[in-house]
């Protein structure tokens, strides 16, 4: 119990430093993100854990510069179409993909989406915010249709449907592959792109990390076809990915995106602090630029919409049941009920887990993010690397400290978590 108090105290100290989060945003924040370069730069600088980390430096060197930088990249066209089984046949015949049936992602007019008081009349319902609803609806489309990256292995895999199941790709009833779209890259070539939904819509639920998607296997298959030994990639396993370029293989679970607005931090190691919704938008924007070989940038309104949508994921969950005393005593210090049962960061050495990701030289902070527990029973496996297959196993191991939890308390905790 003393260990739990120690952890709670450390989490509270971090929490005290945490600024406002991204679960709510004002029209003014939207306008500043869209129109004010200096604001974007300040937001990025405030969000990064340490400016000297290579991850931070790679963004600070090019984003929001007073002159030049990524602001001057051409805007990537948002004209896309779903990638289907029929498209795979096109590729298999050695033909080029087409975009004849593609559609632009339509962006509503500026007053409508910025919430300008001088814009269209608001709905009479005082509980509804038309601008926010518009942003979220647009963001849902972006989540499903905008390619966040293109990859050689993806083009290769797309042409080989026999391997899709092995790679964990899902095909719906009309033959659309979830998360894949056709788009024209910076050089005008029609390629296959991966959308947010490709990794973060497991079981078709937007926001849920895809536990079936086997990115390591997909890349390993491609590499093997080129005569490269990619057993390390294959060892990632489904639902996991190594996001760093260091020599060690440190795959982490593809994260859920629920409650990211209240989470306070992004990335398993918390290298990005959520200082407002603009943080999310900038995170997506920079991710997009890197995913497109730094040759195009996204339309910024689409990024604000995506941030608005992602910040809304999970927030309409039904009220949580009252936590049992064991939760309040053991867990609430980190998993704060007032923050969707999530929290800030916890020092890696305070957890009985592999600390390699927390200490990664590119983006390690020495900490791990404390995730939200809402809907946790649907989100196995657990911990940053998916090392705990079930909640039962996690608690049996005495999470977080390794201290044994009495059986009666464990049972109460499990019942609560399964209902959360």
């Amino acid at each position, binding site marked *: 119990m003393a260990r739990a108090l120690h952890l709670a105290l450390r989490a509270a100290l971090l929490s005290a430093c945490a600024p406002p989060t991204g679960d709510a945003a004002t029209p003014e924040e939207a306008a500043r993100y869209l129109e004010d370069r200096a604001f974007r730069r300040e937001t990025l600088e405030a969000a990064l854990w340490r400016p000297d980390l290579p991850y931070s430096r790679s963004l600070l060197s090019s984003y929001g510069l007073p002159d030049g930088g990524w602001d001057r990249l051409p805007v990537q066209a948002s004209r896309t179409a779903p990638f289907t089984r029929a498209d795979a046949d096109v590729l298999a015949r050695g033909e080029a993909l087409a975009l004849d049936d593609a559609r632009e992602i339509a962006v509503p007019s500026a007053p409508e989406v910025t919430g300008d008081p001088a814009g269209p009349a608001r709905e009479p319902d005082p509980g509804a915010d038309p601008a926010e609803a518009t942003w979220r609806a647009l963001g849902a489309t972006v989540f499903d249709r905008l390619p966040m990256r293109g990859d050689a292995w993806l083009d290769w895999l797309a042409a080989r449907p026999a391997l899709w199941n092995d790679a964990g790709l899902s095909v719906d009833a009309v033959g659309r592959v979830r998360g894949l779209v056709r788009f024209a890259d910076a050089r005008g070539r029609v390629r296959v792109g991966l959308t947010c939904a490709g990794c973060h819509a497991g079981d078709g639920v937007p926001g849920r990390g895809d536990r079936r998607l086997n990115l390591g296997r997909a890349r390993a298959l491609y590499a093997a076809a*080129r005569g490269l030994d990619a057993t390390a990639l294959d060892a990632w396993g489904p639902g996991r990915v190594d996001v760093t370029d260091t020599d060690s293989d440190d795959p982490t679970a593809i994260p859920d995106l629920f409650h990211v607005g209240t989470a306070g931090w992004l990335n398993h190691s918390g290298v990005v602090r959520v200082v407002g919704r603009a943080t999310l938008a900038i995170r997506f924007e920079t991710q997009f630029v890197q995913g497109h*070989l730094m040759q195009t940038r996204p339309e910024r309104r689409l990024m604000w919409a995506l941030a608005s949508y992602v910040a809304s994921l999970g927030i309409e969950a039904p009220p949580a049941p009252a936590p049992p005393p064991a939760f309040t005593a053991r867990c609430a210090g980190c998993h704060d009920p007032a923050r969707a049962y999530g929290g800030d960061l916890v020092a890696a050495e305070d957890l009985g887990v592999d600390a390699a990701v927390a200490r990664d030289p590119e983006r390690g902070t020495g900490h791990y993010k404390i995730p939200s527990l809402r809907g946790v029973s649907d989100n196995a496996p657990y911990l940053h690397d998916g090392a705990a297959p079930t909640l039962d196993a996690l608690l049996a191991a005495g999470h977080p400290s390794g201290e044994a939890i009495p059986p009666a308390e464990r049972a109460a905790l499990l019942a609560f978590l399964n209902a959360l």
Partner: protein
Amino acid sequence: MKRLMTTLSLALLSALTPACIADPDDGGATADAGSGGTEAPVNGAALTLTFVSGHLGNYWDCPGEANGAGAAAGAPREAAGDAAGACPPGEECVSIINCEAAMVMLEVENETDGALSDFRIERIVLVNDDGTTEDLEGLGIVDAETQAPPAALPAGASRTLRVDFRGPARDPNDDGNRFLRLELRAGESAAGTLETPPLFSLPAVAT
């Protein structure tokens, strides 16, 4: 402490280097590596270059493609997009998984009195974190919008170009303290130089 000293050294180097390399006869304008600034024209004919984006490539799975690694001579393979891009229709894809040629995108403004054409790379120099330099091989210049060789640029106009080059071999300990000095020429004598902000290898998983 080692990192701190390195950082301090680099800060000092960044502050001093432009002053050291600027030739007083050239007008003495200097570059700001931290903001992608530009330098004074060479030979008095002005191409103003502004940094847009860039990376040092990704040669994880094709180390032989990196600069100085004995890459095949002759016509350079098409850079960036084709290294890890879509396979041409009807052809077996020859790209491999983490293999992207390095590139810099820059905005070029013609400050001369006439139109300029025949854009070419004069020199690309990588400045390492210890101050040593390495000449890199340029692979080509295209208009970033059309992907074609740059058309004539009228006086006073500007355009974004992409310069492809053979990047340095992968450095697993790269902490982002390398940058480029790039000299571009056009027409008879117009020239401009650019000192980039710190550049990084292209991440294999950009997320």
